[in-house]
């Protein structure tokens, strides 16, 4: 039985008891039909008001509960969305490494631009605030930007050599960091 139903029954019971007792203790001279009607009417009104009050309070509580649940669902959705964005970034990172290893630098450069966009997008995601404020992440992003410029310069001017091995190492470092954060984010209970 819900609290509201129980309270309604109690109020109704108390009300009926009050009617019986009031009528029972009436003087003989007061025991007239209009007096009965007045007492029953007054107490029924009070019961009605009390039941309405109980219901309004219950409705308010359920509304607060519903808002909290909606907030939780929204947070969970945002969390899942962020996890999915990080997973996408890790996947893109692995693709870039694969392209570099197989010598497809133009393709690697294209995917590098995509990854840069994703990393920049992380800065505006409140769920990822903990990630984006970390010093390691900031340094990895700058390092990644430098690598992106190095690849670009190398494509435009092959005389400007680039150490692809070092770029893959940097990408691996970024991937590891993102994976660690992704795991952490997945385990957070909302």
């Amino acid at each position: 039985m819900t609290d509201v139903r129980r309270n309604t029954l109690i109020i109704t019971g108390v009300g009926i008891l009050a009617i019986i007792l009031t009528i029972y203790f009436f003087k003989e001279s007061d025991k007239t039909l209009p007096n009965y009607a007045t007492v029953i009417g007054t107490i029924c009104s009070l019961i009605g008001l009390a039941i309405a009050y109980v219901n309004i309070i219950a409705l308010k509580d359920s509304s607060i509960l519903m808002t909290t649940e909606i907030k939780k669902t929204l947070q969970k959705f945002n969390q899942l969305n962020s996890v999915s964005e990080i997973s996408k970034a890790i996947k893109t990172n692995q693709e870039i490494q694969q392209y570099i290893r197989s010598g497809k630098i133009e393709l690697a450069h294209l995917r590098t631009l995509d990854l840069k966009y994703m990393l920049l997008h992380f800065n505006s995601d409140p769920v990822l605030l903990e990630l984006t404020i970390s010093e390691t992440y900031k340094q990895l992003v700058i390092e990644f930007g430098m690598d992106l410029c190095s690849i670009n310069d190398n494509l435009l001017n092959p005389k400007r050599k680039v150490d692809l091995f070092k770029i893959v190492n940097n990408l691996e470092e970024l991937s590891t960091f993102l994976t660690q954060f992704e795991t952490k984010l997945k385990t957070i209970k909302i």
Partner: protein
Amino acid sequence: MIPNNIKDLILALIEKTASKKAIWGKTSRPNEFKLNFEKGAVTTDFWDDRSGDAVDFAIYNKFGDRIDNFSATRGEPEFDLLIDLHNAAKREFYKVDETIFNLFNEVNEDKSIGKREIEEEDDSLPF
């Protein structure tokens, strides 16, 4: 043409590096060195370009975007300033001064220095 404020920055970096108060790192380019700041980084690179030796100085913001880049080839008026920074960064990264100081210390000691690389002949027969 390098603006005056950037020239001042480069001179300040050379001074800071010379006084051993700047820690330079290596980037993914063979001769490029980087110096990280709280909200960005600077790099200096030296390479053999089509028109001869070239050197550059780049500034990156906190998102890793290259927001400014100045390069010069040998003979251009700004080459000397940029190469001074590059050399200072290189000396700091490879700890050139410290290495020379240690070499001096070792040379001035009484003990003999160097290591014989040829192994003493083994008299035992291989069969």
